């Protein structure tokens, strides 16, 4: 059996590891266009500001490929998939045949419609290569503009501000993280970054990048000119679905897969940022570019490829955890409802005090989204309630109490072995103390 995995990041690596766990003999090949050993894209901002070294970017140990007997082909792109012959053609015209193929082609940064994005000093903030180039440039630069304030934009802004650059972020919406956080959470995160000197311009799009050969600044509306020695483009991502499209596989916004992560061709699977998932919190099909999703999908796809059938039914599009400067924040599920529409069937419970903001969105007695800022403890427990559709009607008044915890739901094991010894039936009645007296031998 030859498993061929296209892509060299979270999903492909998780799939390879899972396959090797289930099939000790099969051949596993990873083809990655990156020239580096699998590294964590999410950490490149910490590499740019010098808090971690390049060695710390690698999320698997150095002997990962060798230990799992994986053939890693780096700096190589797949040009074409031949479904009939069950082979792929690489950019060096070599051919690789496969029995099972995984597309984990990920996403690439979107090129905004602005003039002069080809000037020197204009970068994406996507790969280790981008990060290394930006890092080299930093020594001679004092000001920078970041276009876009999603997670990538803010990570870039934060890294540059840590390197004492004067950073301006341009965002066309009225808040930071417009796709992940509501206005209150966005304001707290914005203030956290502002405390480090980052400036924000909202409701504006960059019109043109100025400069000859090298960037000198960015023009925002008709008159505003911001000098900048460095411009970072962070205006979202585009799914890498062309390879699948050309092979005739079904695609829409992303590659379409069934619940076993199979594409329209049964021997070709897809996982990670390149696929569309069914978001269980909103009921919509979405493309989600998050590390956690990619790893889980990789594991499920790997298991299915090795013929251990596993249904992937826990897709949640938004799952973000972040800490820029001082303030940690987590958003999970559908938590974006800003105002309470009297006709909607969504309920919102929120508290905001002393830099802590917690918001829960409830629908039909089930949680469907959370935003925690400042205090993120137990966020995963709330996320599990969302994922497993647990009925919370009995505990509605306590949802944001400090002692609201897993203890209330100890009968839910969330598919792990419970640590609790079986309790006597009367333990859950009002006579529980009798059982205690008996048990303690008092």
């Amino acid at each position, binding site marked *: 059996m030859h498993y061929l995995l296209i892509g060299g990041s*979270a999903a492909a690596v*998780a799939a390879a590891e899972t396959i090797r766990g289930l099939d000790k003999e099969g051949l596993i090949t990873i083809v990655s266009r990156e020239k580096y050993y699998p590294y*964590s894209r*999410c*950490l490149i901002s*910490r590499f740019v500001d010098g*808090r*971690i070294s390049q060695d*710390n970017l*690698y*999320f*698997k*140990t*150095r002997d990962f490929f060798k230990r799992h007997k994986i053939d890693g082909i780096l700096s190589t792109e797949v040009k074409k998939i031949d479904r009939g012959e069950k082979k792929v053609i690489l950019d060096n015209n070599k051919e690789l045949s496969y029995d099972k193929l995984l597309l984990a082609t990920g996403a690439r940064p979107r090129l905004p419609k602005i003039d002069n994005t080809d000037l020197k000093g204009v970068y994406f903030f996507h790969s280790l290569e981008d990060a290394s180039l930006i890092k080299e440039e930093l020594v001679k630069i004092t000001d920078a503009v970041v276009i876009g304030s999603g997670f990538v934009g803010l990570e870039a802004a934060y890294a540059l501000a840590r390197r004492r650059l004067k950073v301006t972020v341009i965002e066309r919406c009225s808040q930071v993280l417009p796709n992940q956080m509501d206005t209150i959470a966005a304001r707290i995160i914005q203030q956290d970054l502002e405390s480090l000197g980052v400036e924000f311009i909202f409701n504006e799009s960059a019109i043109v990048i100025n400069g000859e050969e090298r960037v000198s600044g960015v023009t925002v509306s008709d008159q505003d000119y911001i000098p900048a020695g460095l411009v970072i483009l962070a205006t979202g991502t585009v799914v890498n679905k062309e390879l699948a499209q050309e092979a005739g596989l079904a695609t829409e916004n992303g590659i379409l897969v069934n619940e076993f992560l199979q594409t329209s061709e049964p021997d070709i699977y897809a996982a990670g940022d390149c696929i569309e998932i069914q978001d269980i919190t909103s009921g919509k099909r979405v493309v989600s570019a998050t*590390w*956690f999703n990619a*790893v*889980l999908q990789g*594991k499920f796809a790997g298991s299915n490829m090795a013929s251990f059938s596993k249904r992937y039914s826990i897709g949640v599009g938004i*799952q*973000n*955890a*972040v*800490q820029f400067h001082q303030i*940690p924040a*987590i958003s*999970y599920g559908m938590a974006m409802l800003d105002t309470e529409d009297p006709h909607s069937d969504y309920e919102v419970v929120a508290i905001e005090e002393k830099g802590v903001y917690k918001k829960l969105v409830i629908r039909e007695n089930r949680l469907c989204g959370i935003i925690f800022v400042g205090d*993120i*403890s*137990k*966020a*995963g*427990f709330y*996320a*599990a309630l969302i*994922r497993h559709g647990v009925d919370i009607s009995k505990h509605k008044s306590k949802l944001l109490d400090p*002692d609201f*915890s*897993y*203890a*209330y739901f*100890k009968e839910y094991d*969330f*598919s*792990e*072995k*419970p*640590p*609790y*010894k079986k*309790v*006597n039936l009367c*333990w859950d009645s009002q006579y*529980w103390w009798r*059982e*205690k007296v008996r*048990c*303690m031998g008092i």
Partner: protein
Amino acid sequence: MKRLVVDLQRCSGCKRCELACALEHSSSKEYLDVFKSKDGLKPRIFVESIGDRPVPVVCRHCADPLCVSACMAGCMQKDIQSGVVNNQGYEQKCVGCWMCIMACPFGVILTSSIDSKASDCTFPQAIKCDFCPNKATPACVEACPNEVLTVEES
């Protein structure tokens, strides 16, 4: 594979396990220093309550841990031999991205603040039950007066 087993009916809610845990994971191992430190008491075992009944919530060192899947630095790992899930002592270092906190269904992972004295790390760290690697029996188990907590090997 090691894990903690909890006998709910024996727990009186004295929280000695929490104290012992916080103390074991402090640098000085002195109560007063722990209380005075910036982080304060940060036990990795949680005696919660439902009404008047105490329920200790512990890390299960899951068979298929979500915190490990979520970790973008690769530092959260499940030890093959002992089965203990932890983010310290590996080649990869915790960078405080909090993905594990978002992933853990039992809510047993915490954030630390940056303690520059304690270590050379630049980032606040995710902290969780590490099964007390320097002890034969975890501190919480030793401290429990009612034999609520036991270690089970399987």
